[in-house]
């Protein structure tokens, strides 16, 4: 077990290195010139060159990469090319908004998906299953931004129950206000996660109920309820650990589309702005962070899985 963790951690280092190189290369291949965003019509070419030099953009690509790497090890992800703010600072500033939104959406999704998935899987082909199945089909097929627009139209524009966008009403500083703003984006995200989870749990339940040991449990006088809750549930929830591990990156990087539609001031919309402005330190910062979280999330999921599944736990 410990060996597994150490091994996975060691694998992370080259992975991150390659991710950063890949990311850097992508940005350097860009046809756009980031300096142009600083240029005003009455600037001298010398001024432009000075800006270029100041930003380190006149050095060879590998030097630029090394410079950036050096900064990164000092806990500094560089400075935005657009507003000259430290990237790390910008990202940290936006983490609460994103983590709050994504965390509540994930929690909601898991809490609803488990009973729905188990119910659907154990009542295969009855009306409850058909209904749950249909909902989850729609959930994986619906364009999330469209769902968001429709909900905004219904609940914010027509019914005036909820605010249209943003995270706070200007001038108001209450938690209630933030929650009200969060309901729609959170529901949209939760619905999308939920549908995937339900499908996993449902098919897992169906698969497990076909296993030989389940048949044998019946032969020892177990009722369907006992089989489902004492024997099948643990199996079925194991893959959810993996799914949640993968969601860990999203917890911080957020959902670009949802945040954009709702103008939610999270990291997703920061990334969106950065891409539009070719602000490569910001893009790389976000990319690296999310790659790191993805890797850590997978690692955590593997470790948790190892503890939850005796077949892995007891093999040392």
């Amino acid at each position, binding site marked *: 077990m410990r060996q597994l963790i150490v091994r996975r951690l060691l694998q992370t280092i080259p992975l991150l290195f390659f991710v950063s190189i890949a990311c850097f290369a992508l940005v350097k291949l860009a046809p756009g010139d980031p300096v142009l965003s600083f240029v005003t019509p009455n600037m001298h070419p010398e001024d432009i060159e000075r800006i270029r030099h100041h930003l380190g953009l006149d050095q060879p690509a590998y030097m630029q990469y090394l410079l950036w790497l050096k900064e990164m090890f000092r806990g500094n992800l560089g400075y935005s090319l657009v507003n000259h703010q430290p990237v790390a600072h910008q990202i940290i500033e936006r983490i609460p908004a994103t983590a709050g939104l994504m965390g509540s959406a994930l929690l909601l999704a898991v809490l609803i998906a488990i009973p729905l998935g188990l119910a659907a899987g154990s009542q295969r082909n009855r009306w409850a299953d058909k209904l749950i199945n249909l909902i989850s*089909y729609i959930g994986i097929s619906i364009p999330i*931004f469209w769902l968001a627009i429709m909900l*905004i139209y219904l609940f914010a524009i027509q019914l005036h129950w909820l605010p249209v966008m943003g995270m706070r009403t200007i001038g108001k500083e209450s938690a209630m206000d933030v929650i009200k703003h969060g309901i729609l984006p959170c529901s949209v995200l939760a619905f999308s996660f939920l549908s995937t989870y339900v499908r996993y749990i449902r098919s897992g339940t169906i698969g497990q109920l076909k296993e030989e040991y389940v048949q044998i449990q019946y032969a020892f006088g177990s009722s369907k309820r006992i089989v489902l809750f004492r024997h099948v549930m643990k199996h079925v929830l194991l893959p959810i650990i993996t799914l949640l591990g993968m969601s860990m990156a999203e917890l911080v*990087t957020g959902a670009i*589309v949802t945040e954009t539609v709702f103008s939610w001031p999270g990291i997703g919309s920061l990334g969106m702005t950065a891409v539009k402005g*070719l602000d490569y330190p910001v*893009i790389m910062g976000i990319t690296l962070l999310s790659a790191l979280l993805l890797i850590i999330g997978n690692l955590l999921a593997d470790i948790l899985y190892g503890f939850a599944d005796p077949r892995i736990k007891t093999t040392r």
Partner: protein
Amino acid sequence: MNRTKWRNLKNEWLSNKIGIAASVVLAILVLGAIGAFLSPNDPNALDVLGKLKPPSANHWFGTDEYGRDYFARALYGGRVSLLVGFSAMIVATIVGTVVGVVSGYFGGWLDNLLMRLLEIIMSIPSFLVMLLLSVLLKPGIVTLVIIIGLLMWMNMARIIRAETLAAKEREYVLYAKASGQGAFGIILRHILPGIVPVIIVSATNNIASAILMESSLSFLGFGIQPPNATWGSMLTSAQGHIMDAPYLALLPGALILLTVLCFNILGDILRVGLEPKLVKR
């Protein structure tokens, strides 16, 4: 591929009303996309006086903020969406199958290399990269297809690799190897035919994801550029008119949902029909 499998598939499809409905809807959508030019209205013809008109006999879906016929735009938009979805699936399927089969069959250092590469690509947040790429490369259908295709093959490769590993241990493959059949002969004659069902299922699901990705990209303004429309980009402008013309937002989104839903349903029917567990002896 095995004949019984095709028969099972046919039975599964015919016994499933939803499956037939999904196929019919898809057929209509595809026909609509192909026959878009038959539409009496030019999708890009502006009509300053007739803008934001609700649906009528002349304009079935109404008109948009430039007075363009929304029905014609939806038809042409569907053409692009379906084309991008289908082509991206082809790219992803080819890359995914080649990588998966090669990695699974040859194993060793090659497998190691390919799987590490795959891990790296998978740990890059794909949507961000997609956005970045579509800014960097010249936006257009071909670019879009390549970007989406290249960010979708990894799952396919993993599935195919696992299938290949399993197929490699089948006794008919061992026999072929022991009789001196070469690696490519074995892959072509014995491994690929066995995993065609898996490829078809995952390709069908990939069309669905590709269409969704394309619509998201276009919605954010990184996809097909104006004046050409796709369902996703039609929603971008519709969002701005949600107050005065909500139907503009309703229709393209509903079309995306319908299309993706149909592909997902068909994918599941294919899975049930093509991959029943081996008959118990």
